[in-house]
């Protein structure tokens, strides 16, 4: 790896970024996701946090540009130069530009935006080009699959030279010491949510990531991906068409895009709960109706995501509405049109058309047991 002369780096560990101009060749959501994952490649390896700004100046201003765009490094049309970024510093420092003339892609047919973004953010954080062909910071383009991507060693050494490692001298524990025994048949979950094309299952300080149809499910520590949540998540849900997820603990919630937290925690009163509600047990977003159901004790509320208001004539009784689901609702998630309720060691598959439970399995079977 190489650093820039004078080894410029950010003195702060939490950096803001803003996508000021999008490309016409990908949806905003795809660009947001690629950028989030490109940043996460670095925050997984070093104690860095990235917070998305939606207006004004940010440390890392990101934009898709054509030809001469005012920074004396004009782009050259399709192929050739794909993007560039500036070393850490005020003003232009850290800014990252992509050539809008390229055919950007979320896959391998065209230039994979995650691959190029992750490389450019290496520059924005203070890394020059590496002469190691296996490194992400090697100058020429080489497709990287975003799912399961792990930063090559050469890049990890470079970024940790500048910012240290996530924990002093040790690899971050991906599985915390008291990792609950996944195949304990009494295993229950604290929260379950979709996130992109994965399902996340939370328990104590651990969470499992499951891709829709893949068996490889491995536990991670919540602290490693959600440092602000640490442990004991009460509830979580994702509004997939907004690419936004919500995580709840006590009277607070956090908003994330992918695994990147957007700003500081907020109070659940934002949703319009009555003041006596200080914690929710579970939450699930229903794609068809665009409503989020919040479960609190024996009752549930319905929040209209389109109008962003709590619906009237709620709360209603869970027993009345969801017959067949027994016990307190710990977690809930919608998959392929069915609502899955997790209550203690059992998971209830609820068919909203039949208005009845159509299957009951062990909760732990969802993480491969």
């Amino acid at each position, binding site marked *: 790896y190489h650093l820039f*002369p004078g080894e410029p780096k950010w003195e702060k560990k939490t950096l803001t970024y803003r996508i000021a101009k999008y490309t016409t060749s990908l949806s905003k959501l795809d660009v947001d996701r690629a950028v989030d994952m490109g940043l996460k490649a670095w925050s997984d390896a070093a104690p860095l946090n990235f917070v998305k700004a939606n207006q004004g100046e940010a440390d890392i201003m990101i934009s898709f540009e054509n030809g001469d765009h005012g920074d004396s490094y004009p782009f050259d049309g399709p192929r050739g*130069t794909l*993007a560039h970024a500036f070393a850490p510093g005020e003003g232009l420092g850290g800014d990252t530009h992509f050539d809008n003339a390229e055919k950007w892609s979320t896959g391998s047919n065209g230039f994979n935006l995650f691959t190029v973004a992750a490389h450019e953010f290496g520059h924005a954080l203070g890394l020059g080009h590496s002469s190691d062909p296996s490194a992400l910071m090697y*100058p*020429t*383009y080489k497709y990287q699959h975003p799912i399961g991507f792990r930063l090559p060693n050469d890049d990890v050494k470079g970024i940790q030279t500048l910012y240290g490692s996530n924990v002093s001298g040790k690899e971050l524990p991906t599985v915390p010491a008291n990792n609950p025994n996944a195949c304990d048949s009494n295993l229950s979950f604290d929260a379950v949510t979709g996130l992109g094309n994965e399902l996340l299952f939370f328990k104590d300080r651990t969470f499992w990531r499951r891709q829709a149809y893949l068996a490889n499910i491995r536990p991670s520590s919540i602290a490693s991906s959600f440092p602000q949540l640490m442990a004991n998540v009460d509830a979580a849900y994702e509004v997939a068409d907004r690419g936004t997820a919500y995580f709840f603990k006590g009277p607070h919630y956090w908003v994330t895009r992918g695994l990147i937290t957007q700003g500081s925690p907020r109070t659940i009163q934002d949703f319009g709960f009555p003041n006596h509600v200080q914690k929710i047990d579970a939450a699930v977003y229903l794609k068809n109706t665009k409503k989020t159901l919040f479960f609190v004790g024996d009752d549930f509320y319905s929040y209209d995501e389109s109008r962003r208001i709590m619906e009237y004539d709620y709360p209603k009784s869970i027993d009345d509405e969801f017959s067949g689901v027994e016990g307190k609702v710990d977690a809930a998630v919608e998959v392929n049109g069915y609502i899955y309720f997790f209550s203690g060691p059992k998971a209830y598959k609820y068919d909203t058309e039949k208005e009845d439970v159509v299957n009951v399995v062990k909760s732990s079977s969802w993480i491969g047991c």
Partner: protein
Amino acid sequence: APAVFALSNWKDIYTAKEYLDKYYSNSGKLQISEMVAGSVSLSSKLKKMQQFFGLQVTGKLDYSTVSIMKKPRCGMPDVAN
């Protein structure tokens, strides 16, 4: 063809000039005449690039050097300014 070139395809010569001016420009840009007649500056830039990419360091514009120059890449210089 001038000693510095193992090939005389004019398009490649322009590709090489643009590439070296962009990514190895810390000692100034090249003249097209240098590209044809060769020069110390050109040879040293080529050597720097060949060394960076782990190629045989010849100072000559050979096929393996030109093929790297044609690959899509990041716009940041390899020799940091």
